[in-house]
């Protein structure tokens, strides 16, 4: 059983435009994410799914330069973009990561993949019911299930087209779904390590500086959460109003 990872990313984010190319220690956030995902033992290939818009031309040039596979599709019909990207790379099972999760933990990604595999599930996620911090979100699904959920979307329902797995989640009776929850060790739903706003960027930057300065290129979610708690870094971005829906 093979697993392709698809990262959804675009330059025209409404709250923090260009966030995926913001640099920490001269490395764009998207590349930090890509390299962390490389530590996964169960992902065979990672693809960035971005938009057809001119605004993403430079972004695509960067991906080409870094030899990162990509697909360009609709900006707002993200579910369609993901389906097309998966088809192009002949993916059967997809691990979906959003570009705003640069601190993703590949060990947790692999837990979701393993659990998906051995339960013959259609959809496994660790974010439907929030225990893991926002920013460690993993969703794994069969492409066939996503396609089926796409067909269930009403023609004028733009929200379900924008949020890739919303239809999968809404129509759960058709799909064998598993929600993974963490134990207390990683149960910090009030800590946000996602990249939505400039305050998030400040927090992520502090984390990366801390670990990379210690020559720790890779660090786990547990180390990350411990560091944020110890240094009270959650104060940096705790007052941001969050949007739902992943």
């Amino acid at each position, binding site marked *: 059983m093979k697993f392709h990872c698809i990262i959804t990313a675009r330059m025209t984010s409404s709250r923090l435009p260009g966030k995926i190319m913001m640099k920490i220690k001269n490395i764009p956030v998207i590349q930090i994410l890509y390299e962390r995902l490389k530590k996964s033992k169960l992902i065979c290939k990672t693809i960035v799914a971005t938009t057809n818009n001119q605004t993403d031309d430079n972004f695509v040039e960067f991906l080409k330069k870094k030899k990162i596979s990509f697909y360009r599709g609709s900006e707002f019909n993200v579910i369609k973009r993901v389906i097309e990207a998966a088809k192009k790379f002949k993916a059967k099972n997809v691990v979906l990561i959003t570009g705003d999760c640069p601190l993703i933990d590949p*060990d947790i990604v*692999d837990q979701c993949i393993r659990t998906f*595999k*051995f339960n013959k599930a259609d959809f496994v996620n660790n974010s439907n019911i929030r225990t893991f911090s926002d920013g460690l979100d993993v969703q794994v699904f069969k492409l066939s299930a996503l396609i089926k959920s796409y067909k269930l979307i009403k023609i004028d329902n733009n929200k379900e087209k924008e949020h890739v797995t919303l239809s999968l989640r809404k129509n759960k009776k058709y799909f064998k779904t*598993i929600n993974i929850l963490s*134990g207390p060790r990683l149960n910090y739903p009030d800590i946000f390590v996602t990249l939505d706003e400039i305050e998030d960027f400040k927090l992520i930057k502090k984390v990366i500086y801390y670990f990379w300065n210690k020559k720790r290129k890779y660090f786990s979610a547990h180390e990350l959460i411990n560091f944020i708690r110890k240094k009270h870094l959650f104060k940096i971005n705790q007052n941001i109003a969050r949007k739902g829906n992943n």
Partner: protein
Amino acid sequence: MKKGIIIEARMNSKRLPGKHLYKVLNRPIIEYLFLRLKKVKNVDEIILATTNSHKDDVLEKIALKNKIKVFRGSEKNVMQRVLHASRKYKIDVIISITADCPLIDPDIVDSCILTFLNNNCDYLNNSLIPSYPGGMNCQVYYKKTLEKSFQSRLNSNHKEHVTLEIANNNKKYKHLYLCAPTDLHRPNIRVELDTIEDFKFIKKIIIQIKKNRYYFNCSDLINLIEKKKI
């Protein structure tokens, strides 16, 4: 819904009789299990389910000393023993742990409980698919699921292994197999207590872990085994 850990233990183990009383740092090994399970957060009651035999009086004594509830029942029909224990303490969700797993990580137990409660399933198991180290074994199911299984046609093997009928029938019961994150995915590591060699190994681990000897997590344990190669 009342959630209860039910620990199965007896002195009359076939391969290593009296193993739960074997001592590490002056403490019977089963006490380590009790202390660790007390760290589990999402649980209302911890119950030792042991047998009616006089030999097991000592287990009851240690349990009570550690403020663990005790139920005593059939020696051979373990399924009935666990079911009766859950009835007596009005447990709706049973977390089954065997005393053969003295080094079980309470954090893993909590993730099993929370995952079970937030999915549409009858039975959660984290060891049927080898992923976590052996000895982290946890099963979660509803009491009503056990009642249903108890009504099935059972042989002596089913009665001895509480969840065997449930685990063998994934059509009749909705199963969920929870696998480990990669940092804890060590199907080749085993810290279960069946033989005297197992005991020596477990004793070595507890003594070598400098941190808090009564509570260290699965990750500490893996680090010790892999780095010091004990």
